[in-house]
């Protein structure tokens, strides 16, 4: 829920003295969740007497004997009337449970640069309240948006602590420019770079991880152009407005406390083969290839070794069986403590929050610890001036481990063969009797790239790694009200982000006999100033106008330096020049309401950005929208069934400018670049200029209908949209014969078109309550045009996702696998004409599926009986494909990778119908090039549809629990389980995957590609919360 504005806080106590015997009605007013409601208004007999509930939700009214009518009201809840008949001297206890009003007339939503009555909004905005954000433990707050809003696709990050989710609002509309929505915290567009630290250790930096979910009052997701065009050049991928908690005026002191403890386990486990299984499969491959005797074993023998040596190694290997997966995972412990203080006086409001969150993942050695504090202070200086200060400071410490392709569990799922020992059991000597490996030394093996491996050794001894993130988001806002209905808001914001990565590496036997350490520091300073003026003008009774005009300037400076200290070559710290960008903007909005039912809005923004050259420096982003509240019309006003009906439509342009700061410049190396040839200095071009680089622009049309039925017992919203993005920015691979390999240009055209539906239904009311929130969205995504370029013009990192005209962004571009030849067990592919071939050839790659779902959605069912409550959040995704990119090695050519037990279903003799071809150690048998076992075929493209029980929570609430002298309000105990089960046909690990990405382009192009990605966690938690 949004900020509760306790408008009716003033008391209206009328003193009556004519009665000798006092009759009293008293009780507690609470909400649908049995949480007490302070500040609710209780009026007797149409206002003859009245009072507000106190901090405990309690009220007490003294009335004359006889019949009275009591009215209970509270913002956002339906009014309740109760008739009472008081006998002389009677004290009646009357507790009231308020029912929420789904479409409350004065309910407000946060919009760009202001708030609007929800009723008057003509744009498409989804709101998620604080309760949903804190209901379940997530690696980072944005993951909790999953399943809450139609058309907002949240793909939760991996099992790594602090990992980032990817959020796509109404599909992907960008290729190389960042495709994430713009995040705005209390009016400040915050720094949101996921690639500050690249893809180190197979994890991207998560700029949102330091935000404390307990400080957030509400999150608004702006979806259509009418809502986002006010953010102009940065609105094309949606805008997420985060509003933090504030103290309300004239309230006493309340303290909220929440603590949660839990454990983390993997939601699913890989099914790697054990020694016996692996060796059996490997031996079979060897024999299929014509080998005799025992097969050679990686890191022990080679194919050229004699039979005796091979046999010895094989037999020795059979004596060990190490479950490497088990040695990289465990049970992570989670604990979170949060306290929030709110206090409101005559002139001020204060919110102060402090929280500590230690979020260990199930990956051994991995955890994210965050401590954060916030103070939001509002002070009314005088009649025309109010000051609002928001400041937060948080520190996140991520204890890192390598994952996926970089090590840890990734090793356990790939190069860690089950017969490799963790340590040498006995000392090993060379022929001369010199000790090579003492007993207990970690066994180090080499992967196929020569990398030294042993995930246990790295975790326990060789490498310690932590990322420290300090962040402070600050804002001072002055609100001036010089004349009636005119508000001028001046705001200055400063967002400071500091990242420090510390890696210490100890000697590794046989690899390195010295220690080394690396330090990487980045800090980003982000300033924001804005000035807005808005004026409400009620011309006549039926004509209401609202005007907003504003200007905004934002500047960001990113600094970074690295320091490497090794025993051999110490390098000094070097401070580079900052990378800078700025935006200068002017914007306006006009609203007109006629008879409270006909709504028109127009917005416009002019944005200038340092990222674009003078030719295209400024962009213009207008929008118009209109709404009609049909239910206010006479013919519907008295309808028994339809309590609310509104139709609205909008058109607008939005942009995306999320590209590297200096992409437009042609540059040469610095004069003192330090590179010499023949001891003479050199100068060389680095990047080609593109002075015509410009915004990508999305043209969005949106129409929707909102409806409430049966006194809003059921409310729903149905919307359709069409979003055509033009001049989409691509960092295209240019012909290397030009002397360059990449070039930023406005190239593509992308269509996103969709339907969104959400419904909220109070199925059962009364003592037993059952409420259902359901949303579903379909998005159709198509790359309409990429000029003269081919699918290979851009690609998603190391993934095999490409841009194919007529297909969705990020299509899998692979060789199509047809079947296993029953006669000889060989894989059969289909060429571009659909003809069968044994030849695996990159020239026959084609579209074989994509990672974009046909439908996504979520459903929350809430049940309540007396003090008990039960909540179940399920999310689903239908129709997306997943490319299990690591399966091509786990289930492909037998190699130095461990295999999955799925591999048992392989061809063994003529006539066999098998999923996998004949086992072989020779990649050429599968038609691959020698030395290139990367079998990128559609065999590993699977249906990734799933239904996941994201959260199941059971709670019990004590109202006004008294323990000795203390009164605890709304003390709630709850247990919850996340990811309890997932229904899917995907045979791999986790059908919901946001892997580590190489860059923003990869993040756009490679949804649903998994490569040894740690699965999400399943956590079991116990929560205690109360207020006093």
């Amino acid at each position: 829920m949004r900020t509760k504005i306790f408008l009716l806080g003033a008391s209206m106590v009328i003193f009556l003295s004519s009665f000798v015997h006092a009759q009293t009605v008293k009780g507690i007013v609470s909400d649908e969740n049995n949480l007490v409601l302070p500040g609710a208004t209780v009026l007797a007999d149409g206002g003859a007497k009245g009072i507000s509930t106190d901090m405990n939700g309690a009220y007490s009214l003294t009335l004359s004997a006889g019949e009275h009518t009591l009215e209970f009201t509270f913002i956002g809840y339906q009014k309740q009337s109760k008739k009472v008949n008081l006998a002389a001297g009677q004290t009646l206890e009357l507790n009231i449970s308020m029912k929420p009003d789904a479409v409350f007339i004065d309910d407000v939503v946060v919009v760009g640069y202001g708030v609007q009555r929800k009723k008057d909004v003509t744009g498409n905005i989804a709101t998620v309240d604080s309760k949903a954000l804190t209901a379940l433990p997530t690696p980072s707050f944005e993951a909790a948006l999953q399943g809450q809003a139609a058309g907002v696709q949240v793909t939760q990050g991996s099992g790594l602590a602090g990992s980032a989710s990817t959020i796509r609002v109404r599909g992907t509309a960008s290729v190389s420019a960042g495709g994430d929505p713009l995040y705005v915290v209390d009016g400040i567009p915050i720094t949101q770079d996921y690639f500050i630290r690249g893809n180190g250790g197979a994890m991207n930096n998560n700029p949102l991880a330091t935000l404390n979910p307990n400080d957030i009052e509400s999150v608004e997701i702006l979806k259509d152009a009418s809502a986002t065009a006010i953010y102009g050049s940065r609105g094309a991928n949606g805008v997420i407005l985060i509003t933090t908690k504030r103290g309300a005026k004239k309230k006493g002191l309340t303290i909220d406390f929440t603590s949660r403890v839990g454990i983390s386990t993997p939601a699913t486990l890989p099914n790697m083969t054990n020694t016996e299984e692996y060796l059996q499969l490997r031996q079979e491959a060897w024999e299929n290839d014509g080998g005799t005797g025992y097969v050679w074993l990686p890191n022990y023998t080679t194919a050229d070794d004699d039979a005796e040596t091979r046999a010895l190694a094989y037999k020795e290997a059979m004596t060990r069986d190490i479950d490497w997966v088990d040695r990289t995972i465990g049970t992570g412990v989670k604990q979170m403590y949060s306290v929030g203080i709110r206090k409101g006086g005559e002139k001020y409001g204060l919110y102060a929050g402090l929280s500590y969150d230690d979020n260990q993942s199930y990956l051994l050695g991995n955890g994210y610890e965050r401590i954060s504090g916030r103070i939001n202070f509002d002070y009314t200086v005088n009649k025309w001036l109010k000051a609002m200060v928001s400041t937060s400071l948080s520190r996140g410490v991520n204890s890192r481990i390598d994952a996926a392709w970089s090590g840890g569990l990734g090793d356990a799922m790939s190069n860690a063969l089950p017969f490799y020992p963790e340590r040498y059991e006995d000392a090993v000597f060379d022929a001369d009797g010199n000790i090579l490996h003492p007993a207990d030394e970690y066994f180090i093996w080499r992967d196929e790239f020569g990398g030294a491996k042993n995930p246990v050794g790295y975790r326990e001894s060789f490498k310690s790694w932590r990322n420290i993130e300090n962040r402070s988001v600050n804002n001072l806002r002055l609100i001036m009200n010089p004349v009636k209905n005119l508000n001028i808001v001046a705001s200055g914001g400063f967002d400071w982000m500091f990242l420090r990565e510390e890696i210490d590496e100890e000697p590794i036997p046989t690899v390195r006999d010295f220690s080394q350490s690396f330090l990487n520091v980045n800090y980003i300073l982000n300033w924001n100033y804005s000035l807005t003026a808005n004026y409400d003008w009620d011309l006549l009774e039926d004509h209401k106008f609202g005007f907003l005009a504003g200007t905004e300037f934002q500047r960001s400076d990113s600094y970074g330096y690295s320091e490497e200290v090794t025993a051999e070559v110490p390098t000094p710290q070097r401070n580079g020049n900052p990378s800078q960008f700025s935006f200068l903007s002017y914007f306006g909005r006009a609203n007109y309401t006629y008879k409270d039912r006909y709504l028109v809005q127009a917005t416009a923004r002019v944005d200038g950005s340092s990222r674009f050259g003078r030719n295209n420096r400024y962009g213009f982003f207008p929008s118009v929208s209109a709404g009609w509240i049909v239910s206010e019309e006479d013919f519907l006003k008295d309808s028994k069934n339809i309590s609310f009906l509104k139709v609205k439509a909008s058109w607008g342009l939005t942009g995306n400018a999320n590209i590297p700061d200096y992409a437009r410049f042609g540059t040469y190396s610095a004069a003192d670049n330090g590179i010499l040839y023949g001891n003479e200095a050199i100068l060389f071009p680095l990047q080609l200029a593109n002075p015509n680089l410009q915004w990508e622009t999305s043209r969005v049309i949106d129409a929707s209908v909102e409806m409430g039925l049966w006194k809003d017992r059921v409310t729903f919203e149905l919307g359709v949209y069409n979003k055509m993005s033009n001049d989409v920015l691509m960092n295209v691979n240019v012909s290397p014969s030009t002397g360059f390999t990449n070039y930023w240009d406005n190239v593509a055209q992308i269509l996103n078109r969709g339907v969104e539906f959400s419904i909220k239904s109070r199925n059962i009311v009364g003592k037993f309550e059952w409420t259902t929130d359901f949303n579903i969205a379909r998005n159709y995504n198509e790359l309409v045009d990429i000029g003269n370029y081919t699918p290979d013009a851009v690609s998603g990192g190391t993934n095999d996702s490409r841009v194919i005209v007529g297909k969705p962004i990020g299509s899998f571009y692979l060789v199509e696998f047809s079947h296993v030849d029953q006669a000889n067990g060989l894989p059969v592919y289909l060429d571009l004409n659909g003809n069968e071939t044994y030849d695996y050839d990159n020239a026959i790659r084609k579209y074989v599926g994509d990672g974009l779902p046909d439908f996504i959605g979520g459903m929350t069912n809430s049940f309540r009986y007396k003090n008990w409550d039960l909540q179940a959040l399920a999310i689903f995704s239908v129709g997306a494909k997943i490319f299990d990119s690591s399966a091509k090695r786990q289930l492909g050519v037998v190699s130095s990778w461990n295999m999955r037990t799925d591999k048992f279903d392989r061809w063994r003799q003529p006539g066999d119908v098998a999923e996998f071809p004949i086992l072989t150690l020779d990649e050429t048998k599968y038609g691959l090039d020698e030395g290139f076992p990367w079998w990128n075929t559609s065999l590993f493209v699977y249906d990734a549809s799933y239904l996941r029980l994201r959260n199941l929570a059971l709670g019990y609430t004590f109202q006004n629990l008294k323990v000795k002298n203390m009164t605890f309000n709304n003390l709630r105990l709850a247990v919850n389980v996340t990811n309890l089960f997932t229904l899917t046909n995907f045979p791999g690990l986790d059908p919901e995957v946001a892997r580590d990405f190489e860059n923003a382009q990869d993040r756009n192009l490679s949804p649903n590609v998994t490569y040894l990605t740690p699965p999400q966690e399943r956590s079991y938690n116990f929560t205690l919360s109360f207020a006093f």
Partner: protein
Amino acid sequence: MKINYKYLLILACGLMTLSACDKLLEFEPGDVILAEDALKTPEDLQRLLNSNYDVIGNLFDGRVQVLSELLTDNLSFPEDNNDYAAVYGRQTNFFTSTTNGVYSDFYRAIYRCNTVLESFDFIEGLDDAERSRIEAEARFIRALCHWSLVKLYAQPYNNTANNGHLGIVLRLEASQEPLGRNTVGEVYDAVVADLRFAHDNLPIENSFYASRLSAAGYLAHVYFLMNDLPNASLYASEVINSNAFSLDSDLDRYEQDNISTETVFGIVSFSNDFRNDGFSNNYRSDIGTPVLSMSESVFSTFSLNPSDMRNDWIENNNGSYFSTRFNGSNYFNVPLVHLTGLHLLRAEALAAQNIDLDVAVADVNAIRTRAFGEGINQLPMDAAAEVIINAAREEMFKETICEGVWIDYLKRRGTLGEEITIRNAPYDCPGMALQFPNGETSVSGFQLNPEGGCN
């Protein structure tokens, strides 16, 4: 008073809106020079020219030579390097990053050369002599790059009657326009034109940078591969007869700190700037097991004659054969055109024309004297042309082992009608031409090489 504050504050806010201007949006990258400011003075241009030597220094530090050598049967299968295995197996595809990197680097230099050639009008204070030298050096490097590319990525010259078979993209302008492949004939014409310009305009002396004789040395090699033997021997003779160079007495042309006396053109290394990693990282056998080992046939060839002092170049290490040519030094200079090669080239060119056989014999014998000792294994002065050719080839094979030259000689012989098979595949099977990088196909219309067909 109150009113004053009020309007003062609002006025201040109002001023904020006016202070905005375009300057707020001007950020230029630090640590770099903007392209429009980069080339102003003769020094700037000289530095840009020097960056081309930097590029070819990183290409010919062994990287390119290794790729050429992998196509011969001089090496054993490179088990530990997938990309080398692909080259060796004649199975490169457009994802083979090593070959893609080499390709891109050559064109990086070509772009820079073209930029040099198009920048003269913007440079103040450049005298005509300097302009002429810089122009000639840029065209020299452009020719070297185009020629290296066409040898690696296309079938050899003379493989079709009119050389109309597809070569590589010829880039004679610093343009971003996607271009298709030119024919091998067109590429060679451009290479010869550039080298002849360089030859006519380069100074006689130019430190370790390209000189008139460097261009002559390359012209000899280019004409030789075109089987234009009169020109090949003419330019070889120009270098040999200049007496500017002399055969290195100790067989080792890969010298540290000194440039071998027989280096006509080469890459230079310094203790602070190694330009030999492509050799050292792949072949050095004195600091561990090298990535590349020699084939058994190479070892046999070298050990045929016990008095051949070059036998030490290949060592037998428990049945693996390692090159020792690059052992011992962390850095060394890399000769690309050397007197040894030109003597042997001229010997074959003259013998094939059946002229000046005495000169040809002397060329071969000069090399043999150094390899075997005075008077040992010498060709008789009346040796027949065919004998001279065979001897010249035999010495060329040995002298240039690991230098990445031999494959060009094999292919040339193939185009002359000799039956040349390399590891059981014809010299011109499709995979002998490396595949172009994926990036070339990012624009439709580029014609890739056919793949495979060699195994």
